[in-house]
């Protein structure tokens, strides 16, 4: 039996340009399948992963936005972004592909404290 340690995954990478966004998602889904509670935080360039209307056909790549929308089906529902980051790229919640929880930047520290283990991508 696997101990139910809670995991926070911090996403700081934009989609498509690097493979980090994909690799992070694969780890999140796996941990969730192993019944470990997973929270996802998207900060900095990581926020770009959530922008809607992605259409990567010409790149021959999978639609990252669609893969993220599958998260609730894997019982991953704690998805955080910061108000400051959203404002800094001039977008609103309407520009995002899925519902997220908005937090203030200074709440990041408590997210880290609350979880047993923290991974970054």
């Amino acid at each position: 039996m696997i101990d139910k340690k809670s995991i926070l995954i911090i996403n700081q990478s934009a989609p498509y340009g690097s493979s980090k966004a994909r690799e992070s998602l694969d780890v999140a889904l796996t941990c969730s399948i192993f019944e470990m509670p997973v929270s996802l935080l998207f900060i900095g360039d990581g926020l770009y992963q959530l922008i809607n209307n992605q259409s990567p056909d010409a790149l021959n790549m999978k639609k990252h936005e669609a893969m993220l929308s599958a998260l609730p089906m894997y019982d991953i529902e704690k998805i955080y972004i910061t108000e400051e980051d959203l404002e800094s790229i001039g977008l609103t919640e309407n520009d995002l592909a899925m519902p997220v929880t908005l937090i203030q930047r200074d709440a990041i520290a408590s997210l880290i404290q609350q979880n047993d283990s923290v991974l970054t991508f």
Partner: protein
Amino acid sequence: MTLHVINKTPQNKSLYLNMLNGLSSGDAILLIEDAVYSALEAHQSLFKALSPDDIQLSALEADIQARGLEDKLSPRFSSVNDQGFVKLSCEHDKIVSWY
């Protein structure tokens, strides 16, 4: 005249600063891959020192579409397809990649 091609997000301020320091009148900037995020209105302060008559600004269409930015770009940037990338490469006598 030089074509400057950049592929990193606007977060990489020093990379953008170095590129901007390398510009001469008549040069062009093309944003590709993760650099297309720099064409968002919110990041236009990066390019504020540039006169539009002087430096041509464009971003690669396939990368814009992939990232869902089609309706979100600053009007300062024109969208070019792969043929446009090749055309820009021919029109300038050298290409500098900032990565």
